[in-house]
């Protein structure tokens, strides 16, 4: 099963990639990957984070140019260097990305026309012909909407279908287009994804070829005929016409032998020095947005990771705890006392939050580094005769030194700093409040390796000093490196948690990827 099956019959293959290699600086994203797509099938490309699936899609779409390899679409062959977006399109590749690229205010018909052109009637537009044509397409794709409906008014699964129909609108009877779906269900709720996948399946049954990238194993299994599994930029398995189990797929992705991960390592004590410490942060039954009842307790000095797929509610959890979102139900307690709603109150209770989107939600780009550092503690510097600028400046310089922020002075504009230094400064802004609870959302996203080490060290020091730390991250290696314990969010709930010797990147991959419940909880009964 794990070895490559016999390649499908050559004439049958509409898309074939061989030996594709792509490097970004020192990182190798693709390392001789292969992929073969049979006509008229739904083919799933799966793998963990950073396995190279997205890079493959981007190479096919012409966003990146591969360093080596061969691409064959519908009988035409290109070398990696000779392939570009236009070649792919001419050969029949059509893409629907996670961002659908629809114009929500415009009608469905106009969304189609903006791609394919408006039918002319004399000097103007023939709306009648456009609406007729689009109505036909909507019927063919089983989209229950009028061409005049604004695209934004459609339900999410139908919006994706509109994007699919739009991508394939120039398909003629004898021409075989290949539809590439990149994470089509990532942002859809469960029942919406099912509707979408059923529709995709029905298209495939009528001969449509589909290449699909997805994180959700159950969904992939429900629609796909063939599977290609990537790990570390290589093809580790090609399963054509076989239906694997979710277990088998996940094992292939994480590279662990079946069974190994299911055996709990000799009932190891959950990690950490913090076991006996009291819980500083207690979240109970939190409901709101994507959250559907989250319970979480974090002890003094503990670093708890939050893992989960895109859309699982990681960021929502942190923002709700920080008082940015008002939950529908549930409570947040700090040190046993219920925390009042609203961010200022939560800050006063000792909670700090470093957001994921540094440029958009943390930076004051044109203010100075000093002003960025002071943003959380302005009142400290206020005297009736004005702001204590000299003290503010001296303390800013102290923080810059303590957190190894590389800047010419405290008075440079924040935008002039590199990403890593900005992140250190944002962290310093919060740590100077000596928070009891530190919430970190993707703390090292877009941060260079050196700064990453500094940030990890700082976070560990803070925890050692008694702070309760929560780290939400899509980087499982980061969670492994930093956390005492990791909880996995799935469908707005904490599905499972791992700690101690169970806490390995591979096991985390397995836990975050699997959609159903069968992965045994660590320390479980089996």
């Amino acid at each position, binding site marked *: 099963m794990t070895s490559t099956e016999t390649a499908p019959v050559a004439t049958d293959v509409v898309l074939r990639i061989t030996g594709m290699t792509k490097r970004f600086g020192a990182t190798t994203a693709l390392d001789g990957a292969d992929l073969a797509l049979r006509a008229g099938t739904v083919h799933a490309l799966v793998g963990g984070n950073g396995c190279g699936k997205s890079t493959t899609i981007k190479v096919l779409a012409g966003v990146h140019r591969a360093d080596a390899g061969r691409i064959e679409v519908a009988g035409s062959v290109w070398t990696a260097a000779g392939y570009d977006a236009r070649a792919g399109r001419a050969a029949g590749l059509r893409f629907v990305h996670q961002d659908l690229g629809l114009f929500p205010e415009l009608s469905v018909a106009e969304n189609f026309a903006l791609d394919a052109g408006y039918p002319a009637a004399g000097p103007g537009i023939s709306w009648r012909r456009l609406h007729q044509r689009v109505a036909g397409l909507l019927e063919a794709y089983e989209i229950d909407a009028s061409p005049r409906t604004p695209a934004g008014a459609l339900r999410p699964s139908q919006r994706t279908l509109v994007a699919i129909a739009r991508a394939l609108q120039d398909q003629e009877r004898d021409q075989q287009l290949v539809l590439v779906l990149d994470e089509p269900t990532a942002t859809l709720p469960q029942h919406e994804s099912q509707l979408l996948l059923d529709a995709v399946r029905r298209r495939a049954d009528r001969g449509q070829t589909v290449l699909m990238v997805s994180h959700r194993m159950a969904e992939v299994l429900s629609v796909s005929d063939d599977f290609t599994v990537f790990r570390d930029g290589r093809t580790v398995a090609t399963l054509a016409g076989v239906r694997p189990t979710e277990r088998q797929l996940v094992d292939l992705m994480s590279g662990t032998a079946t069974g190994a991960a299911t055996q709990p390592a000799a009932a190891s004590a959950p990690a950490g020095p913090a076991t006996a410490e009291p819980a500083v942060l207690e979240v109970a039954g939190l409901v709101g947005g994507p959250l559907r009842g989250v319970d979480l307790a974090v002890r003094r000095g503990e670093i708890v990771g939050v893992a989960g797929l895109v859309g699982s509610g990681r960021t929502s959890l942190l923002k709700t705890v920080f008082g940015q979102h008002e939950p529908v139900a549930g409570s947040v307690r700090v040190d046993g006392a219920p925390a009042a709603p609203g961010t200022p109150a939560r800050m006063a209770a000792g909670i700090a939050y470093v957001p994921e989107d540094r440029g958009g939600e943390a930076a004051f780009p044109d203010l100075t580094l000093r002003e960025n550092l002071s943003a959380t503690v302005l009142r400290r510097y206020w005297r009736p005769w004005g702001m204590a600028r000299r003290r503010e400046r001296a303390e800013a310089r102290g923080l810059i030194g303590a957190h190894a922020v590389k800047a010419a002075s405290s008075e440079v504009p924040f935008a*002039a700093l590199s990403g890593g230094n900005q992140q250190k400064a944002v962290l310093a802004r919060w740590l100077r409040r000596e928070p009891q609870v530190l919430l970190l959302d993707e703390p090292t996203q877009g941060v260079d390796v050196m700064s990453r080490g500094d940030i990890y060290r700082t976070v560990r020091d803070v925890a050692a000093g008694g702070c309760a730390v929560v780290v939400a991250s899509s980087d499982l290696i980061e969670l492994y490196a930093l956390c005492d314990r990791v909880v996995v969010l799935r469908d707005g709930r904490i599905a499972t948690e791992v700690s101690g010797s169970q806490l390995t990147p591979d096991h985390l991959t397995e836990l975050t990827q699997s959609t159903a419940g069968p992965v045994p909880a660590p320390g479980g009964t089996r």
Partner: protein
Amino acid sequence: MSLTNTETVATAAGNAAAAPPADRRGGGGSWRGHAERHALLGLLVAVVAFFSLYPDSAQTFFTSSNASMLLGNQSVVALLALAVILPLVTGYFDFSLGAVAALSSVLTAGLMSFHGWSLWAAVAVSVAAGAAIGAVNGLLVTRFGLNSFVTTLGMATLLGGLVQWYTGGQTILAGIDPALPQFGSATWLGLPRVVFIVALATVVLWYLLAHTPFGRRLYAIGSNPRSARLVGVRVDRSAWTTFVMAGALAGVAGVLQLARAGSATADNGTGLLFPALAAAFLGATAVVPGFFNPVGTIIGVLFVSVSVSGLTLSGASSWASPVFNGAALLVAVGLSTYLGRARGVRTG
């Protein structure tokens, strides 16, 4: 005029002296940073020197009577310019402030003339009306998320109409408490009294914006409202407050206008608003380059008015004033935008 000028700048200089490593912004201690900060002031001095020596205007320009008249006449625009920068600091426009001043002027006069109110009651109600209009603008813009540009432009048009309706298009001349025009034309230490009101407003605003956590939060909102929200700033409430304060200040400007003119004209205030906007944007290129600030704004008002006065006294026609105002506004917007961009690029 040179007296107020040195006064306001002296406060700024005192501030700088209090923090010796100096240089608040990206320019560092560089020559360029200094040049940027003091360019407008230098230009003002140059314009004064030029018209004092230029044969056509030398006789009349550099005289105390001209300086006194100029400062007195500009006090209304200066106060309005200070009002304009409050919402601008947080990133919102308020185009209705000119109309608020016009309304306040007419209302103060009307309450005394038509209804026999006392001076103080009329002034208090007019200033409160300005604040109330600001509160409505602020609510529409922050709570309901309407575009500030269009909303306040709409409000300005509406208020202009109300002024026409209230006055019947007539100038209110009679029935105004004579104490008010007397105050408007009185001098103190050789300067029109109204100038001291402007100076007081400048100092208060400078303190509020540069030396309180509230002011610093306003600049943070202007820089990035989403980040501000995530460091615990009540973004909407703060922005709303700036609209209310600006409305009240524009109300005071209207009262001052009545005090200077002695009568209230049915006007929509556009003639006041645009010089004030020009001054605000010019001011954003000085003192704290790239940021709206009160001291820079006052320098901006002086620069525009001194230049126009010099041109007029040298015999330029009446079209010189709007042309100069318009050009100054364009140059100022361009320059402050350029400075803002340059700041982001220049690395420390």
